[in-house]
């Protein structure tokens, strides 16, 4: 199979990464070479194989729902590129 320019653009939209036509062409070429390498998996019959979702395959442990850290508003906001005193600031969403 081949991944065409339209698909590359669609995936870039889904990925929230803007790309121009030149970049999309180059990326399409890379993706096609990577996917032709990935196609090798189709040689294998996996009809009766269960997917391996986690190597640990144990039930996740439960813990008490307790507050462990308090008053960390400043810490949380510290690295934001745009904030006011209490909130993260983003471009206007609602008209």
């Amino acid at each position, binding site marked *: 199979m081949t*991944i065409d320019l339209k*698909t*590359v653009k669609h*995936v*870039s939209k*889904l*990925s*929230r*990464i*803007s*790309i121009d036509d030149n970049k999309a062409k180059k*990326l399409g070429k*890379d*993706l096609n*070479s*990577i996917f032709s*390498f*990935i*196609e*090798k*998996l*189709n*040689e*294998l019959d*996996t009809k009766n*194989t*269960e*997917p*391996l*979702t*986690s*190597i*640990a395959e*144990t039930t*996740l*442990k439960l*813990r008490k729902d307790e507050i462990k850290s308090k008053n*960390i508003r400043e*810490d*949380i906001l*510290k*690295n*934001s*590129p*745009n904030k006011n005193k209490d909130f*993260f600031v*983003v*471009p*206007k*969403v609602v008209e």
Partner: protein
Amino acid sequence: MSNITDLKLVELVDKIKKKELSSTEVTIAFIERSKKSKKLNAYISENYENSIKKAKIFDQKPDFKKKLPGIPIAVKDLFCTKNIRTTAGSKILENFVPTYESTVTQNILDEGGIIIGKLNCDEFAMGSSNETSYFGNVQNPISENLVPGGSSGGSSSALAAKLTPATIGTDTGGSIRQPASFTGTVGLKPTYGSCSRYGIVAFASSLDQAGPMTHDVKDCSLMLEIMSNYDTKDSTSVEFKRENYLNNLNENIKGKKIGIPKEYRVDGMPKEIDELWEKGIKIIKENGGEIVEISLPNTNYALPTYYIVAPAEASSNLARYDGVKYGFRSKGENLIDMYEKTRSEGFGDEVKRRIMIGTYVLSSGYYDAYYLKAQKVRRLIKNDFDEAYKKVDAILTPSTPSSAFKIGEKLNDPVSMYLNDIFTVPINLAGLPAISIPAGHDKKGYPLGLQVIGKAFDEQSILNIAFALEKNISFKNNITDWWIK
């Protein structure tokens, strides 16, 4: 006395405990050498002044019960370090200063270690040559313009160049073992669940593991002991009995059954790699180990599986970089435009490529054909190892299919770059522990490594086998300090 920086980790610990050296002397020695080694570009951030202060404080009231008493250590810049900038080699985290500490670095601090700086790496640990870092290429101290491997390339370079007595890396598909192999050093990827992933910038969560990189197997055992613990902050952390790996270290491998997987003899593998492997086999036999031919029939499918699973997980993990809560933000006309521009300008090409692959294989209509298929093949690969371990205690293979290559040599061919990890990737997919130790040189004089793969949670056995190999090989790194004027 020889140079302080020529001493290995265990030797330094010993000398500090015997009061033959102070933490301040040791810390200053490694910092001075690091300052003279800027040409290697191994560091992204330096923490020198603060470290010397900490060393002086340690010396005023030394606690010799600690396992790393006042020992300076530089770490891969993928571990969040409180109040020390953590970039993951990316522009998008260029100014990120964590307000918390990763569990693994906290363990190092708790044992008296001093973090002298953060080491370069491929962007978000995606790469095999350290060439995808936003902060530039790293030089391999073995020879000029040679890659140090990746993604823990700053770590392997700094260690081999003796800018730090030991270091830590992360390994998703070979990112500790391949750079160790390229620089003539020791690198261990622990069993999935051994070392906490809390506070490590996530790449592919079902594969990522932190591990030690050191000059020899003894140092590696000490570091693993310190790094590995059960941690409730990581939901995949496993509760099991951690050994005193250093105390238990033992070169006796009599009666151990070591598997040799025939599928690892790949076409076009250089003769030197084959000879290296034969050398390892001979040493095992001479020391009373038993060599068993085994088969891991699905080996050839490991890389294609990895290049679905890892990018899929990465595309989810990296969705958090949206320019809102932390990191770089670009200007946009509206919210979506801001996201798209931020991610387009903030991520490098390899990271974008992998996010796109991951998004594609998870997208509607392709999920079953790619992602589900890869998870099924992942089970087959794990089953191969389970079968093999009914017959053997450990497995011996080369670490990489070649020695280090030149900077720029493989940059334009992603698939050829990916092939570098052909011997290391299956181990991550199966969640097993594996160690790479330096075992010889190729005809160019570049180091080559052997890999010992163990059963899950049996790090002690692979350390012991590696210890026996190391004693018999007596590897010497030929490093000339060419980068210091």
